[in-house]
């Protein structure tokens, strides 16, 4: 299991870099994506390439195990490893699905008005799922209640992500001059530096772009 994995996969347009990862690095990326997704209040950028590579990795491991001698101790250990990886991957995808279902009107709108070139927060499969979820839920609410209501009241608004919620983070790359906006009128804007390796409790909105770029890791 020392093969390396090519993460560039399916983008052939100019500007995409080829990243070749060892399996261990891939799993580390998966775990980072998982933790970030768990602790961020909004849906983060889709990481389909990691999902695809991890699925491939699991398939390879399954194949290897099938060919191994039965009763070999290594088999149990590798099975444990596969279970762990499957758990993290499932948890990551579940977390995303929960957020998608929770904030579906705004996520859909954001996707529909996304400018060309900006990365999507939905994989194509998630996009299909949320469209169906929207149609299903809208149809249900309309047929059971809304269409029986007076004409001017037939549209409704649902939840939005709370970007002001606080998150814990660890700094991976030093950042300077991060502007922190005041929460109450008495306070003023102030600027902070984030030292590499330091940990902070801060409002998500302030550091959202740093999560996307990988400069900080949510914990």
């Amino acid at each position, binding site marked *: 299991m020392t093969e390396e994995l090519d993460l560039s996969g399916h983008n052939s347009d100019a500007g995409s870099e080829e990243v070749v990862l060892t399996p261990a690095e891939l799993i580390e990326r998966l775990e980072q994506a998982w933790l970030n997704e768990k602790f961020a209040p909004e849906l983060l950028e889709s990481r389909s390439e990691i*999902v*695809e590579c991890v*699925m*491939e990795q*699991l*398939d390879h491991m399954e194949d290897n195990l099938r060919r191994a001698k039965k009763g070999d101790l290594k088999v*149990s250990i590798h*099975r*444990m490893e596969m*279970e*762990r990886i*499957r*758990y993290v*991957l*499932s*948890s990551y*995808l*579940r977390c995303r*699905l929960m957020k998608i*279902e929770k904030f579906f009107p705004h996520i859909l709108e954001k996707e529909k008005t996304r400018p060309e070139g900006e990365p999507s927060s939905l994989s194509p*499969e*998630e996009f*299909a*799922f949320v469209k*169906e*979820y929207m149609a*299903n*839920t809208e149809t*249900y*609410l309309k*047929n*059971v*209640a*809304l269409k*029986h*209501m*007076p004409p001017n*009241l037939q549209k*409704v608004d*649902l939840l939005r992500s709370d970007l002001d919620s606080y998150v814990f983070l660890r700094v991976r790359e030093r950042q300077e001059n991060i502007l922190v906006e005041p929460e109450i009128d008495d306070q003023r804007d102030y600027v902070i530096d984030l030292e590499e390796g330091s940990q902070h409790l801060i409002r998500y909105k302030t550091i959202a772009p740093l999560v996307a770029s990988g400069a900080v890791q949510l914990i």
Partner: protein
Amino acid sequence: MFCEKAMELIRELHRAPEGQLPAFNEDGLRQVLEEMKALYEQNQSDVNEAKSAGRGDLIPTIKFRHCSLLRNRRCTVAYLYDRLLRIRALRWEYGSVLPNALRFHMSAEEVEWFNHYKKSLATYMRSLGGDEGLDITQDMKPPKSLYIEVRCLKDYGEFEVDDGTSVLLKKNSQHFLPRWKCEQLIRQGVLEHVLP
């Protein structure tokens, strides 16, 4: 007072602990919709009065009825949507076949919503790569050990384990099985994890 029935719907759900689904209150919903219709019609006629006969004194009443309408709508949508969320949770808890007791508490439209939802979910999971995709409704907890001791709580029949062999799950029989295979059966109450 207006919105009483709507509040009752909300209270009914508030009383039911998470994961439980009380019976669909069709009657209650109908009454709220009827109240909304009545309020709207009264407002329409008052608005006409106010405009044509200059009855500005009607405006506070109109506003009040409008607030009640908004409140009724908000309560109704909250009631219906909260139930959908509970029903959605059932798919994750029990799998795609719901116990009859729960199904009887759902309206026909809710059952339809559930069927669409599980179909969407199945399509999504299948698309995740590999031959059959990934069933993300499994592996709900971090794995602690590979195999677990389970006791069978009811007769279930043949159950296939990984390499083609199968076990007969009879009531009170005990087995040492792969953890991930047992998860759903444990949740459904067919198997019980026997702690060492």
